[in-house]
C-alpha cells in the first residue's frame, strides 16, 4: 500500500527552514532520550542543549537512517510533535554532501546524480575508446583475440596509468577538500583528527559497522520494521570487496614498478586473486543493498538520497561485473570491448567518487572521529531527571 499521508513528515526544502525544523525536532528528542542506546547520534545529541546548523550537520553524518528510533518514537507523525529523526537527518545529510563538495560549483552534480553518473559512464567509455583507438591504430585491432590476454596491446600501460593517475589525483584532492570542509564546519582542528585513540576507535567502528548491528545480535530495522543483519552483511561485502579491488591494484602497481612484472598476471597470482574476490564481493554486496533498498519501508526512507544511492550501487555493480567478465574473456576477441567497458566504468566511478554516495564514507568516518574525541571531553552535568 502507498504511504499513508498522515504518517508522512513534510520537510522544508529550504536549508534555513530545514535547519530550524532540525533544531525543533532535536530539541524535543533531547528531552526524551529513550533511544540513547541505538547509535552514536543520541549520545552526541545529549552533549548539546541547542542545535545549530553545524551540530545538525555533524549529527546527520553519524546517522544511518536505519529507522530504529522512528519505530520506537512515541512522537512520530501524526503526533503533533511530529518527530522523525531518520528522515530529518537524511535530508540534512544530503544537504551536507552538497555543502562540502569541492570545487563548489560541482555540488550541483548531486542534484541529478543518476544523470551525472550515466553521463560520466558514457564519457568514461568514450574516453577509453578514444585512447584505445589512438594507440591501436585501427578499430579492427580492438576485436582481435590475444591468446596472451595482453590488454596493454589495446591500451599501453603508460597511457592507462597516466590517465587514471591524473583523474585519481584530482579525486583525492576533491575528497580531501571535502573532508577539510566538513572538519572545519564541525569546529575541529586538524591536529585533533590525528589523535591515535580516536582514529583507532573509528577504524574499529567502520570495520565492524558497529552502528548497523542494533545491540550486536539482531541488527537494525532495515529495510522493514523487524531487525535484521542484512544491510550490515551486504555493506561488509561491498566495503571489503572495494578494499580487495583496491589492494589488487596496489599489488599490480608494485609488481609493475617494483619487480618489472608485466600484466596480465596468472589466475592464481595475488593481484588476480584479490581482484576476483573483491569483484565478487563488489557484485553481491551492492546488489544486495539495492535489493534491500527497494524493499525499504517508505516511512523511513530518505527521498533526498535515493537517486545517488542507486547511481552509486549501479556503478559499483557494473564495475565489478565488467571486471570479472574481462578476466573470464581476456583471451577471446571480446577482450578489447570488455576492457573498454570496464575501464570506462572504473573511470566513471573515479570521477563520481567526490560527487556521489561514496562521500558518505568520508563524512561518516570523520564524524565518528569527532564522536570519539567528544566522548573524552567533559560534558554537561544535567543532574538527574
Amino acid at each position, binding site marked *: *500500500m502507498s504511504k*499513508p499521508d498522515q*504518517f508522512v513528515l513534510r520537510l522544508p526544502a529550504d536549508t534555513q527552514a530545514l535547519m530550524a525544523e532540525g533544531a525543533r525536532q532535536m*530539541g*524535543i528528542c*533531547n*528531552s*526524551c*532520550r*529513550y*533511544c*540513547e*542506546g*541505538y547509535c552514536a547520534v543520541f*549520545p552526541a545529541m*545529549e552533549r548539546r*542543549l541547542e542545535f545549530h546548523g553545524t551540530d545538525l550537520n555533524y549529527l546527520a553524518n553519524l546517522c544511518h537512517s536505519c529507522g*530504529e*528510533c522512528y*519505530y*520506537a*518514537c*512515541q*512522537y*512520530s507523525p*501524526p*503526533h*503533533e*510533535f511530529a518527530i522523525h529523526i531518520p528522515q530529518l537527518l537524511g535530508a540534512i545529510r544530503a544537504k551536507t554532501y552538497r555543502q562540502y563538495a569541492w570545487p563548489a560549483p560541482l555540488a550541483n552534480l548531486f542534484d541529478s546524480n543518476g544523470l551525472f553518473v550515466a553521463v560520466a559512464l558514457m564519457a568514461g567509455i568514450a574516453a577509453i575508446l578514444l585512447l584505445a583507438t589512438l594507440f591501436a591504430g585501427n578499430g579492427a585491432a580492438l576485436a582481435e583475440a590475444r591468446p596472451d590476454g595482453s590488454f596493454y596491446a589495446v591500451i599501453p600501460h603508460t597511457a592507462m596509468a597516466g590517465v587514471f593517475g591524473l583523474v585519481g589525483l584530482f579525486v583525492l584532492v576533491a575528497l580531501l577538500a571535502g573532508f577539510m570542509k566538513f572538519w572545519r564546519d564541525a569546529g575541529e582542528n586538524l591536529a585533533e583528527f590525528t589523535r591515535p585513540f580516536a582514529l583507532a576507535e573509528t577504524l574499529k567502528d567502520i570495520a565492524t559497522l558497529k552502528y548497523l548491528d*542494533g*545491540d550486536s*545480535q*539482531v*541488527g537494525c530495522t532495515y*529495510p*522493514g*520494521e*523487524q*531487525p*535484521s*543483519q*542484512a544491510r550490515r*552483511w551486504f555493506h561488509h561485502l561491498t566495503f571489503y570487496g572495494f578494499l580487495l579491488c583496491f589492494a589488487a591494484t596496489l599489488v599490480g602497481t608494485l609488481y609493475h614498478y617494483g619487480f618489472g612484472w608485466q600484466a596480465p598476471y596468472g589466475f592464481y597470482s595475488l593481484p588476480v586473486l584479490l581482484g576476483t574476490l573483491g569483484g565478487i564481493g563488489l557484485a553481491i554486496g551492492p546488489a544486495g543493498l539495492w535489493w*534491500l533498498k*527497494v*524493499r*525499504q*519501508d517508505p*516511512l523511513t526512507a530518505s527521498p533526498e538520497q535515493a537517486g545517488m544511492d542507486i547511481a552509486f550501487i549501479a556503478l559499483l555493480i557494473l564495475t565489478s561485473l565488467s571486471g570479472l567478465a574481462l578476466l573470464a574473456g581476456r583471451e577471446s576477441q571480446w577482450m578489447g570491448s570488455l576492457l573498454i567497458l570496464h575501464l570506462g566504468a572504473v573511470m566513471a566511478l573515479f570521477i563520481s567518487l567526490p560527487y556521489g554516495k561514496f562521500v558518505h564514507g568520508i563524512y561518516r568516518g570523520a564524524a565518528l572521529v569527532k564522536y570519539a574525541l567528544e566522548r573524552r571531553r567533559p560534558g*554537561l*552535568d*544535567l*543532574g*538527574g*531527571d
Partner: protein
Amino acid sequence: MRSSALSCKASARHPPQPWFRLGRSEPSAPAKRISRTDIPKQHESTTMKDPYACDVLVIGGGNAALCAAITAAEAGAKVTLLECAPRHYRGGNSRHTRNIRTMHRAPMHPLIEAYPEEEYYQDLLKITGGNTNEELARHVIRTSEPAIAWMRAHGVRFQPSLGGTLHLGRTNAFFLGGGKALVNCYFHAAELLGVKVLYEAEAVDLEVKNNRFTSAIVRKDGAEMRIGARAVVVAAGGFESNLEWLEDAWGPAAKNFLIRGTPYNMGKMLRVLHQRGAEAIGDPKQCHAAAIDARAPKFDGGIVSRVDCVSLGVVLNRDGLRFYDEGEDFWPKRYAIWGRLIAMQPDQIGYCIIDRKPIGRFMPPVFPGFKANTIAELAQKLGLPVDIVVKTIADYNAAVVPGQFDHTIMDNCHTRGLAPEKTHWALKIDAPPYYGYPLRPGITFTYLGVDVTPRAQIKMKSGDVAENMFAAGEIMAGNILSKGYLAGIGITIGTVFGRIAGEEAARHVKA
C-alpha cells in the same frame, strides 16, 4: 498502513526474520491469518455470529494485556486481543514508559549491584505509607527477577540506565528505545503466536452471569458485535483520559489538568467491571500527577513535557507568590508531589523562574522558557502581576544565605526568614536573562481499580471470586500501589500480573 506492518525486535525464541525473507509487502504467516479474520467471513454460518470467538479474550493493548495474550497463547489457548487505539497509537500508557523496576540478588545486565526483595518491599512501604497488599506485593517483587529473561525471550532489548537516570541504574532496567519499542516487540511476538489483534476495537460492555464472563460487546468500524470467550483478561488501564470522570473526582480543577499519556484510557472497562459486581479497590481521588510544562499537549505529551529546573529556581503561583519549598529534595524525588501542589493553587497553574545560572544543569525542557532581561519584563510576558513578582523575587534574593552551590548534592544554599523557605540550591535570581516556565498538573495514571486474588482473578462484591475473569496492569495496580509511586513499578506489576492472568486464563480454558 503497510500490510506487513508488524512491529518488533527479534528474540531468542523468535529470531529475526532471515534476510532472504525480508519483504515490503510480505506478511508473516500469523499476520496473514489476522488480516483474513479482520474481515468477518459472512458466508460461513459458524462464524456468522461471532467471527472472533476465542478461548481467551484480552481487553487492552498495553504491556499487561500483551504479556497476558502471549502467555495464554503459549499455553495453547486461542487468543483475541482488543486494542481500542489505532495501530499507530497502540500500547496504552506503556508506550510512554521506559523501564521496569526489578529485584535482583546479583548484577544482572543491564542492572548493576543488587536490589534485594526486602529493600524493594521497604521502598514500596515507604511510598504507600504501608498501605499495600503484602502477599501480592511480595509476589510481584519476587517474580520481577525472572521476568527479565522472559522479556528478552520475547524480543525486548535493554540498555544501560539513560543519561540523567544513573540513580536508577541499580533498580530499573531500561528498554532499548523505550516503551513503544517494548510494545512493538510484544505485538510482534503475539502475532507470531497466532494471537488475533483487533485495532480500533473498543470493548464497551461485558456480559457476566453468576460471576461468569460469557462475552464482550465490542464496537469496531462503527458497529457493535458480541465476542464470546471462555475467559477474559481485562487489562484496559485506568480512567486518566476521561476528563468527566476526573472532574467527578477532583471537581472543576480537573479541567486544567493535562494528561501525560494515551487519550484512550477512558476507564470504560473499569466502570463496567464495577457495574457488573467487581469489588473496587483504591481511591478515585488518587492519581499520579507531576508538574509539567503548561504548553504540553492535552494528551500524550509523555516524558518530554517534564520541566526539571524547579529545584534550581523558584515557583510562583498565579498571584506572583511562592507556595512551597522548591529545594526540599532532589527533583526526581519531588516532581510527583509538585503535580498535586500546583493542582491546589488558584487556576491550577505555577510558574518556575530561573536566571542564567542553572542553564546546562538540568534536563533540557521541550518548550523553550519565556525569556526576558528583567524580572518585571518576564512577569509581564508570563501574564503575572508585575509588582508582586518583582517584590517576591527581591524578598527571595534578600533572604538567600550564601553557600556552596552544588546541584548534584543536597547543598547548603538556603534562605533564611522566608515563608516558605527554600532549603537547598537557593541562589539569588539576579543574572539575566531570566527564564519562566508555566507549569500544570500532568496526570500519569489513576489508582482506582478492581480487587484481585494472587491468581489475578477478579474478586466480586458478593465475596465470590470470578472464575474466568482476570485483571492485570493499571486496572488492578491499586492492590499494591494505593498511593505514591516508585519509578518503573507500573511495568513490573503489569508484566507479572499480565503473565499470571494469561497463564491462569489458559489453565481455566483447558480445565
